[in-house]
């Protein structure tokens, strides 16, 4: 093989591909921490199949001298742990891609096209103690190429494996060292240069994924109750809350189904405890009736809805933005709700604690829409701002004549809870009078509907303003919501075209009143959504009458890549 000569400037993207069960997740966990703690900006995300063994899964890790927050197609280095990994990822490979693979697993035809470096992973792993160590050898190899000091790598290995006992830890350290040695030999024989600046400050950053940012938002908001039924991709939040439950005095209960989950959370909330449920797709479909209940009895609740492609079971482990309509129109009758969709770690933390305040203030269900891509994406940020967190529960001590649904100017009745004060707190899913008792007085019915809907008017006034990225005098406006923030914002930066700006929505309902103004100012509007019917542009049209010109829709279960956003912008009429 001829000598490889390559320079990686500013940014490198590494993909690990292999079967489920080969330990790719472990390598990801080790490498992201090693990269961050070496002073690089880091990003990682995974795509995987709904199976416990076999198939092909992959994880993208980017190391960079500037913040990186998005999925990219480009693969600079592919670490192939299984034969199928190259087949699975070949549309993303270029002749510049370096493939590092275990001996003998790469097809001859690929060796003709790509730079393939075969290393005796299995042989060395067997020497150390078994094939199980091959992923750590590969991690060591990559770590050396990334110029990560061995002591940092070893610390990451130790953090990962110390709970498995001294003996196994020693072998893992040894496996990592062998990876380093292999890479040293390789680097000695080839001309590979990494020109990515390190920054000491990054070592002090935190490294979290979307799930953890939302989970910390729940904890910061003093959420004390989660009932949920496992379902990908919402399960990671359930895990996060369950694992922190004892430390933060939270009840986590795995309910028998999603119906019980939301009803239980509403029971908890009725007693004045902030509560949340977490679910996905079909699981949320089962909860719908209780969304109406929350609206009717005016008991607040937060619903974390991590989206995946449907309908029905769909693609369980993939990403989508297909359940906006489901959340928006869920439940019977007409009742207000708010929907947030964070696109950054900072926003995820912030909208989560705000979601609890909004739910309590208006006594409504509030949604946090996420998706597999966002939930599983990691990157470093300086910290999380807990100083700004405000907790406003708006609970009153009741008096003897307390009326749970007292008519007020803004539709919000003072919220009492049982056992706190002299009054009776009566909530009813039937239409009810001011005291909460069942009624069929049709005049009261009208007043109650108006009371509940009146709240929406006030919620609109405090809707989060969409964030405009770019110059004010834009000609082309890109619109996105939730997890598309990463690819769109990085594409915008890469395109470097001052005519283009990006309007990012972190609250998608109710819409901020400036929406129409932003859209009308543009000569051309382009929306990116991970669904097939452009649910958000339809909502914008419904609310503002404005029809967005171009809809770029992706619904194969994968997130947009930066390249894809740029490519689409180049190919739309008039090109940019």
């Amino acid at each position, binding site marked *: 093989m001829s000598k490889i000569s390559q320079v990686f400037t500013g940014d490198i993207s590494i993909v690990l591909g292999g079967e489920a069960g080969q330990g790719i997740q472990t390598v990801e966990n080790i490498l992201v921490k090693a990269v961050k703690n070496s002073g690089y900006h880091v990003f990682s995300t995974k795509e995987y199949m709904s199976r416990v063994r076999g198939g092909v899964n992959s994880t993208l890790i980017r190391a960079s001298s500037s913040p990186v927050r998005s999925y990219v197609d480009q693969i600079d280095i592919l670490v192939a742990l299984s034969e199928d990994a190259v087949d699975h990822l070949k549309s993303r490979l270029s002749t510049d891609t370096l493939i590092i693979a275990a001996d003998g697993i790469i097809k001859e035809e690929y060796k003709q096209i790509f730079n393939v470096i075969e290393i005796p992973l299995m042989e060395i792993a067997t020497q150390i103690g078994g094939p199980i160590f091959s992923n750590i050898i590969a991690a060591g190899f990559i770590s050396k190429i990334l110029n990560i000091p061995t002591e940092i790598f070893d610390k990451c290995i130790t953090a990962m494996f110390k709970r498995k006992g001294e003996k196994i830890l020693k072998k893992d350290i040894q496996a990592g060292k062998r990876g380093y040695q292999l890479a040293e030999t390789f680097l000695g024989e080839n001309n590979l240069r990494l020109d990515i600046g390190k920054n000491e400050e990054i070592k002090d950053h935190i490294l979290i994924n979307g799930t953890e940012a939302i989970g910390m938002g729940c904890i910061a908001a003093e959420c004390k109750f989660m009932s949920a039924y496992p379902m990908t991709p919402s399960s990671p939040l359930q895990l996060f809350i369950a694992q922190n439950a004892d430390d933060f005095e939270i009840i986590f*209960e795995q309910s028998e189904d999603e119906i019980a989950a939301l009803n239980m959370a*509403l029971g908890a909330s009725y007693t004045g405890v902030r509560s949340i449920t977490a679910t996905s797709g079909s699981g949320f479909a089962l909860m719908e009736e209780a969304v109406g209940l929350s609206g009717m009895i005016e008991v607040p609740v937060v619903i974390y809805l991590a989206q995946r492609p449907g309908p029905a079971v769909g693609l369980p482990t993939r990403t989508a933005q297909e359940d906006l309509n489901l959340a928006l129109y869920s439940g019977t009758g007409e009742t207000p709700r708010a929907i947030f969709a964070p696109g950054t770690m900072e926003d995820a933390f912030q909208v989560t604690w705000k979601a609890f305040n909004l739910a309590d203030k208006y006594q409504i269900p509030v949604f946090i829409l996420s998706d597999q891509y966002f939930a599983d994406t990691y990157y470093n940020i300086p910290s999380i701002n807990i100083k700004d967190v405000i907790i406003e529960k708006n609970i009153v001590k009741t008096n003897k004549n307390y009326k749970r649904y007292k008519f007020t100017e803004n539709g919000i009745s003072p919220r009492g809870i049982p056992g706190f004060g002299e009054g009776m707190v*009566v909530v009813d*899913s039937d239409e009810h009078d001011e005291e*909460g008792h069942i009624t069929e007085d049709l005049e009261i019915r009208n007043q109650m509907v108006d009371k509940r809907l009146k709240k929406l008017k006030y919620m609109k006034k405090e809707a989060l303003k969409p964030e405009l990225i770019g110059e004010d005098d834009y000609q082309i406006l890109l619109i996105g919501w939730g997890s598309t923030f990463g690819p769109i914002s990085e594409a915008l930066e890469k395109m470097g075209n001052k005519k283009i700006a990006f309007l990012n929505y972190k609250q998608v309902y109710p819409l901020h009143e400036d929406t129409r103004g932003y859209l009308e100012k543009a000569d051309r509007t382009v929306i990116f959504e991970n669904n097939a019917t452009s649910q958000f542009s339809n909502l914008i049209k419904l609310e503002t009458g404005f029809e967005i010109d171009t809809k770029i829709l992706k619904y194969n279960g994968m997130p947009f890549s930066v390249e894809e956003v740029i490519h689409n912008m180049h190919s739309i009429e008039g090109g940019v």
Partner: protein
Amino acid sequence: MNPNLFNMEDADVAWCPGCGNFSILSSLKSALYDLKIDPKELVLVSGIGQAAKLPHYLKSNVFNGLHGRSLSPATGIKASNPELTVIDVSGDGCMYGEGGNHFIHTIRRNPNITNLVHNNMVYGLTKGQASPTSQKNFVTPVQVDGVFEEPFNPISTAIALNCSFVARAFSGDVEKTTEIIKEAIKHKGYALVDIFQPCVTFNKVNTYQWFKENTYYLEESYQPHDQVQAFKRALESDKYPLGIFYINNSRRTFEESLELYQDNQTPLYKRKLDISKLEKLIDSKRDF
């Protein structure tokens, strides 16, 4: 305490004259009065149906939720504030039909709540369809050839699941029903009281007279601590036994199993976030 404490004078009661629900309401009020339960500390939870309207006719805090789902909010309420007395009142359709899954899993979970199930073997509010407990050959406007399904036996099901308290009462005997309800409320753990009641409008088979003739009380010497024995008695259907079938005091309640109540009984709404712990959690994301 005033015995009329639980009365709701202005309530517009939606039950038919002669309905078994009236006697159950009366038994429940007497039980609450005898146990000196303060309405302010009491939460009645219900689903949908004629039985589920009961909380509107008894002065208390009320969570009248969705059809079949009442055990879920009841569990959430008790877990979040164990100081409250939580009683779930609904009918056979709500609890054993629509809410069957919650019934099973609430027995497993064992929250310290009381579950009164008005069992009239028919759907009243929707006007006379069969319920899960309707007997075979029961003819209704929709089960035109009669019910062919095996009737659901809540007592044997609950005992099979090692439910911590299982009883059956008959609304026609207010005094004994009161006593059974009192025992159920006093019991620590999930307590099921299935209450036979006539539906004077839609069930012309299982009438007041029928229940009188087809039930009897478990003998005084009966000991409700043997699961197998209790199960046997639960299967009897020549005549249906009434009384407390089974008690298992060894099961921990859901609340008792929760870590956060091990050294601290404070209801959750009074507990604050420990910011320093959150800071520590955030900091842990900086290291390796």
